[in-house]
């Protein structure tokens, strides 16, 4: 089912949380909403789920106008950053909740719950309470719970935000694979550009309550339409009016036409990648990203002065 958002506005007092949002999420796709905190991305998700009412505009799910429908009639699965586990129920009862309130037959409920617990790999923990689970397990339980009633749409609000880096990486990969199996239209919110680009096919970049750009991760990185997208998606150096990616700052064995001089401030060895901090002749500070082999060839050291070529780069009006 497609999600469509038309001209949605939402204010909290004087603060414009969403202004003039238009968006379409294709059926069965896995999309990300990316933006810094306060950009309105969570509000947008909550408007789609019906947890907030927009001041104006419409929300359509699968072609049906649900703008005035309460959350319980939208067929939406929602996953919260802090799990929102029903802490007075076992894992099994949490997952069964949506089925039980629909008065499904008991054997059917139990079978479905077992199936879902297997899907999120919590089979052995069905009789535990949420308080006895780790953060990652609680979030997987929340996912199983959201999927139980076979929602048309799955919405995840910073689902991995409260987890540590290793668990996050695991769950990202796992969500990706889960989506390949379940194929429900999925939209998730994150402030982590790497997470957005790793998981989704389509990324919506938001800033100050508006949509800056929508595109594939590659489009956003290579053809950012605004200064904000350029600097928020991927890393960037600012040289005068120009924006240059770190991998476009090339260090040369000898100077040539168009090259400039840079003073090496720092050299960081990050495994395969080496990052070099430079001060250019006119005082601009930039990062250069290069491979280990290249760095070894050039014998880079702090205090050296090296020729630098700034390739590519973009200027925004």
């Amino acid at each position: 089912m497609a999600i469509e958002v038309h001209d949605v506005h939402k204010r909290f007092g004087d603060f414009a949380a969403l202004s003039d949002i238009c968006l379409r999420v294709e059926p069965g796709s896995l999309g990300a909403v990316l933006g810094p905190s306060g950009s309105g991305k969570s509000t947008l998700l909550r408007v789609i789920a019906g947890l907030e009412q927009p001041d104006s505009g419409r929300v359509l799910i699968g072609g049906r106008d649900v703008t005035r429908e309460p959350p319980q009639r939208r067929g939406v699965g929602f996953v919260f950053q802090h799990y929102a586990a029903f802490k007075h129920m076992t894992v099994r009862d949490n997952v069964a909740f949506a089925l039980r309130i629909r008065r499904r037959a008991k054997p059917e409920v139990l079978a479905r719950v077992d199936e879902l617990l297997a899907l999120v790999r919590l089979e052995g923990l069905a009789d535990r309470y949420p308080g006895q689970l780790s953060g990652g397990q609680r979030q997987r339980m929340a996912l199983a719970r959201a999927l139980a009633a076979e929602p048309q749409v799955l919405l995840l609000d910073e689902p991995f935000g409260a987890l540590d880096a290793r668990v996050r990486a695991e769950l990202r990969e796992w969500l990706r694979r889960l989506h390949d199996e379940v194929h429900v239209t999925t939209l998730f919110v994150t402030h982590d550009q790497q997470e957005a680009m790793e998981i989704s096919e389509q990324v919506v970049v938001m800033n100050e309550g508006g949509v800056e750009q929508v595109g594939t991760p590659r489009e956003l990185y290579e053809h950012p339409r605004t200064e904000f997208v350029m600097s928020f998606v991927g890393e960037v150096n600012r040289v005068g009016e120009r924006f240059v990616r770190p991998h476009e700052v090339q260090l040369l064995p000898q100077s040539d036409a168009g090259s400039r001089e840079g003073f090496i401030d720092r050299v960081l060895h990050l495994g395969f990648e080496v990052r070099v901090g430079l001060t250019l002749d006119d005082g601009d500070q930039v990062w250069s990203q290069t491979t280990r082999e290249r760095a070894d060839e050039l014998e880079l050291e702090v205090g050296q002065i090296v020729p630098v070529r700034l390739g590519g780069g973009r200027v925004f009006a």
Partner: protein
Amino acid sequence: MALGAARGRRLPRPGGAALSRGLIALYLSLLVLLPVAAVVAKGAERGPRALWEAIAQHEALTALALTVAVSVVVVAVNVVFGTLIAWVLVRDSFPGRRLVDGVIDLPFALPTIVAGLTLLALYGPQGPVGINVAFTRGAVLLALLFVTLPFVVRSVQPVLRELDRSMEEAAASLGAGPWTVFRRIIAPNLTPAIVSGAALSFARALGEFGSVVLITGNLPNRTEVASVYVFGQIQSDNVVGAAAVSTSLLAIALVVLLVLGLLDGRRRRA
């Protein structure tokens, strides 16, 4: 016990665990156990037969029955209205909310005899509202409701304030309407607080004296509650009778608290 081993690793408590435990035991003994034991001993002084006969007095029995019955009604009303008041104070915002919140504690702050006097002035024979409940069983109920108002409100309020709203949102997104959300998500999370508030108001209602003594008129077999009966027996020098009814009150309170404790324990294990 790993007490000795634990001492090395944990922060030492002043005086150590054994001393603080002993201190608590002594304090509770002096304050609670000894007086309670003394009452029971006084009641049983002339043997269990005399004790039973003192309780089985018609006047004593009706006083006890009235006290327990009214206390049960008080608890039922408090559970409903106390929860409702807590809900409105936490979830709604309206002008004067803080004032209402402050008023809840008034029955605590007021000396109970003053509360009784106020109720008598308002709902008595010369009351300005034209409702006269003085010297009726309604007056007992009214006085007890007044003094027990804060218990359920104040025990539910903080729990409701801390309740994770996203639980309710999650339930709604899973298809639950407002009533289902209340019944399956909010109510189970409030139950322990409601029960403890109810237990406190029951205990208080059982032993309340000051607020009822003026407005109920203490008519034997009609509006006389157990605590007033005890007071009357002491005044007419029937110490055994007084102690016997006191012992009964004690036993009722103990049974109620035990049952609630057991229920709570079962809920925790579940």
